[in-house]
């Protein structure tokens, strides 16, 4: 039995690097410091859903084949296609992503990563107006106002609050954990009081909370870090917040523009914006302006609702306005552990962060045209390679219908929805558990991923599988060129 310390968790963009794993007989048996999702991955990686051998669809069924046969078949598909999509890249190492760029260029396809259905609109917003941002370390030590807009860290990035924002003990800002626990105790006490009063008076209705404006924060004037959550529904994160604003669906843009007016000391001629009383917004604007250092974290609540990249653009503009009065930063809550890396690698190799089209022999980027979702919906693709992502589970139905009309190559450790739909399926080793590599945290800090156990016999890494396919593609193409020259 051995204990491996300081392991980086390969799940979400937080990349928590304080995980302790107990390894016994080449298996992880205990996880310390991780969240529920972390534990599920480190314990569940070796479960019954693991693909054990390369598979190919024959007579409608996936049957085991040799690695050699699968590599040859995949290379044939890619080398003979005219407009293949090479999609995914976000749950693998930057080293594998780099080989992916070379492979895409070689086959003249489209290289797109999961940002397209995640923070792609954020990238577009950033390309419009730039981004004032910082590292999570700065936020941990200095930020006294944290806003989560359209995201629920408790569900998607469970340790974000604990490691980087409200509940972390920073050098200059203290953790709010004790204050939150006290609030919970006070609320529980209040409930007990109400219950006692109800029994006493025989009332069946709970007494309404004393509050002049509905949803008005009672702890807004408190010292220390403040937490504001803006969402369309009250999430677990919202329950922890000092201030929760329930915005109407698809109206984040209006709300943000209203805040911009108030931050600039303007007046609003309406009583409510996006379902939120203006009086309430004025207090929020005061809190924003009066903080020392604030940060907005935003998620799919902005990028997937009406407005999409315009929501992000205006959020960044709000931060720009706030920087005239105080100090403010903004950061997207990146989902997959290395989706940031996929953008970084793609940008440094091709000049563009996602949706890169190599069909003309040079990289081209025009979101809406060269993004894989649009190519699929226009039915222009003639083959696909999916790696380290699961569009079968996460793309709209029509896109997948078109994906499975043509040969589909899948590289993944697990039998996920895309693997179930695939024609050629490669099992791969888990990056960050069985293979080492590099991943970029959501604030663009690269961190090393550790290898803690050996992969199962015969299972290669994403990088090794891609390198084999690339070599075979090059061989097929050189033979073709030689044939043409002879003719």
């Amino acid at each position, binding site marked *: 039995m051995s204990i491996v310390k300081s392991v980086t968790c390969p799940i979400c963009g937080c990349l928590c690097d304080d995980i302790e794993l107990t390894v016994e007989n080449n298996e992880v048996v205990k996880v310390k410091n991780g969240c529920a*999702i972390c534990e599920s991955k480190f314990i569940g990686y070796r479960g019954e859903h693991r693909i054990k051998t390369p598979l190919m669809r024959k007579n409608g069924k996936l049957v085991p084949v040799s690695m050699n046969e699968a590599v040859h078949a995949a290379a044939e598909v890619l080398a003979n296609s005219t407009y293949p999509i090479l999609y995914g890249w976000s749950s693998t190492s930057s080293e594998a992503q780099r080989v992916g760029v070379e492979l895409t260029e070689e086959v003249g396809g489209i290289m797109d990563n999961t940002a397209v259905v995640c923070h792609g609109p954020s990238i577009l917003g950033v390309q419009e107006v730039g981004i004032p941002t910082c590292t999570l370390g700065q936020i941990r030590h200095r930020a006294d106002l944290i806003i989560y807009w359209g995201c629920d860290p408790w*569900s998607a990035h469970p340790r974000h609050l604990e490691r980087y924002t409200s509940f972390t003990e920073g050098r200059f800002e203290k953790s709010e954990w004790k204050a939150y626990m006290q609030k919970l105790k006070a609320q529980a006490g209040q409930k007990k009081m109400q219950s006692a009063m109800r029994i006493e008076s025989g009332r069946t209705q709970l007494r309404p909370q004393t509050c002049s404006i509905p949803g008005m924060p009672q702890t807004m004037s408190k010292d220390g870090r403040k937490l504001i959550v803006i969402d369309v*529904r009250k999430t677990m994160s919202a329950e922890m917040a000092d201030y929760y604003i329930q915005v109407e669906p698809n109206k984040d843009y209006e709300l943000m523009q209203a805040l911009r007016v108030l931050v600039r000391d303007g007046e609003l001629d309406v009583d409510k914006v996006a379902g939120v009383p203006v009086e309430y917004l004025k207090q929020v604007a005061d809190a924003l302006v009066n903080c020392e250092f604030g940060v907005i974290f935003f998620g799919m609540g902005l990028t997937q609702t009406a407005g999409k*990249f315009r929501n992000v653009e205006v959020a960044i503009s709000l931060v720009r306005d706030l920087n005239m009065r105080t100090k403010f930063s903004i950061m997207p809550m990146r989902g997959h552990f290395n989706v940031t890396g996929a953008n970084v690698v793609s940008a440094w190799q091709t000049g563009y962060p996602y949706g890169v089209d190599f069909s003309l022999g040079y990289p081209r980027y025009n979101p809406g045209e060269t993004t894989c979702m649009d190519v699929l919906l226009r039915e222009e693709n003639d083959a696909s390679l999916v790696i380290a992502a699961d569009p079968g589970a996460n793309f709209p139905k029509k896109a997948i219908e078109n994906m499975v009309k043509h040969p589909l190559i899948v590289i993944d450790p697990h*039998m996920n929805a895309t693997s179930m739909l695939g024609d050629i399926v490669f099992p791969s080793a888990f990056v960050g558990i069985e293979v080492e590599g590099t991943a970029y945290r959501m604030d663009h800090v690269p961190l090393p991923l550790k290898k803690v156990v050996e992969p199962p016999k015969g299972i290669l890494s994403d990088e090794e599988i891609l390198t084999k396919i690339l070599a075979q593609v090059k061989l097929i193409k050189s033979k073709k060129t030689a044939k043409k020259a002879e003719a």
Partner: protein
Amino acid sequence: MVEQKLKVTLLTGRTIEQGVGKEKGKASKEYFDACSMCYMDADDMKKLGVKNNTNILVSTPDGSVVLKAVKYPRSATPGLIYVPYGPWANAVCSDKTTSIGMPSFKGTPAEVEPAPNKQVLTIEELLKSEFGR
């Protein structure tokens, strides 16, 4: 009065259970339980005569899917339904990318009706019915 159908706004997104399920395996029971459900407002459920943990049919112009209705525990969300990311949510999500590559996963108009006699499909059944594989 109990209504036959209810017009709602469909949101999809993450839940911690979905996160745990996806890491365990997409064919796992945890993933099925976490993703083949739909959070609804308690009053909306009353309007439709839907009991907690019974099945409903969610329909949009892009498709329809049977899900298990679960009362949203944290707040009133009238007119909103929330389905965790997964193949069930994507059976009804809008694929309109508004020319920027991103489909409309949140804020799609949808209709909900009770479907007590219809079964929620497993991931294998759902993929088979949608894509024939």
